């Protein structure tokens, strides 16, 4: 299975994503420059965080027109899995591959902190797996599971019209919501003013996922959390099945 990490001018979480996929999950990963015309040869496409094009005009608005994005859209239409993290989520919304938009945080502050994101749907390709932590314990997806991951954004307030929000809820497309440490979804636990505490959603077909928290910064006990592994393990298993890969995909055990 081959994974693409797309690099835009201004991406700055590309190396974190590459590191996790290559070294924690032992995958064949390549950086793909945004000028490339095709990502057809890849089974999983990651749009990393950062400040593509300096966030000029709107976050993700210009990256959306990068040559590679045409191919990303085509491959998504073919059913390939696409994971957009932070700026990647913003780009997917700007590209209309996900509904809604991410606007300036309610507080106007750039928020950089660990949050709890509650898993709302474990039926998706991005949130169903079980994964071993470094200490040997298993982290198993279940509805209501809390994932502790960092956020780092100034424009992460998810907004959509009421009809879109209804549809996201009806079709169970909200994968993650910001919660407090007990799992309660409250305004106090909403770090950026997102509608209904939404932290991550999938598209209608369920193969494109965008989230504001950074799972790639939560894959090592040294970083304070390994909960992000659940997202990667899920998407890697799903992409592996789609690719028809018989090779075992999963986390490299031990050190």
């Amino acid at each position: 299975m081959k994974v693409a990490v797309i690099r835009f001018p201004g991406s700055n979480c590309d190396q974190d994503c590459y590191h996790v996929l290559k070294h924690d999950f032992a995958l064949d990963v390549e950086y793909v420059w945004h000028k490339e015309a095709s990502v057809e040869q890849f089974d999983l496409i990651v749009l990393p965080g950062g400040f593509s094009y300096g966030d000029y005009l709107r976050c993700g608005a210009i990256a959306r027109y990068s040559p590679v994005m045409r191919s990303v859209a085509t491959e998504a239409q073919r059913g390939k899995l696409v994971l957009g993290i932070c700026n990647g989520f913003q780009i997917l919304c700007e590209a209309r591959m996900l509904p809604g938009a991410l606007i300036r945080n309610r507080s106007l502050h750039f928020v950089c902190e660990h949050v709890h994101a509650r898993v709302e749907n474990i039926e998706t390709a991005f949130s169903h797996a079980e994964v071993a932590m470094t200490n040997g314990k298993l982290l198993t997806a279940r509805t209501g599971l809390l994932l502790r991951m960092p956020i780092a954004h100034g424009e992460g307030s998810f907004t959509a019209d009421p009809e879109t929000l209804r549809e996201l809820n009806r079709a169970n497309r909200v994968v993650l919501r910001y919660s407090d440490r007990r799992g309660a979804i409250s305004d106090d636990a909403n770090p950026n003013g997102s509608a209904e505490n939404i932290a991550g959603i999938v598209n209608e077909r369920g193969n494109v996922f965008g989230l504001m928290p950074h799972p790639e910064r939560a894959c090592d006990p040294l970083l304070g959390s390994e909960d992000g592994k659940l997202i990667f393990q899920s998407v890697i298993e799903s992409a592996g099945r789609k690719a028809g890969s018989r090779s075992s995909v999963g986390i490299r055990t031990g050190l």
Partner: protein
Amino acid sequence: MKAKVTVMPKKTVLDPQGVAVRDAMRHHGLPGVGNVRIGKFMEIEVEGADEAQLREICKDLLSNPVIEDYELHLEA
């Protein structure tokens, strides 16, 4: 030709910048300040494009219709 494009957040979308500026203006001795909304203004010099093409680019690139409305004014 010169295209002047104004992009404003939709009325239904929270504009935290506008709220912050409103509060600052009130603190500066203007208690009567009501709603403040902050958008963008762009001046574009362009040749060989018609209004339909410019409207297309306003809708697709210069604004995001999910959260913003635009107005386009053309000057010869």
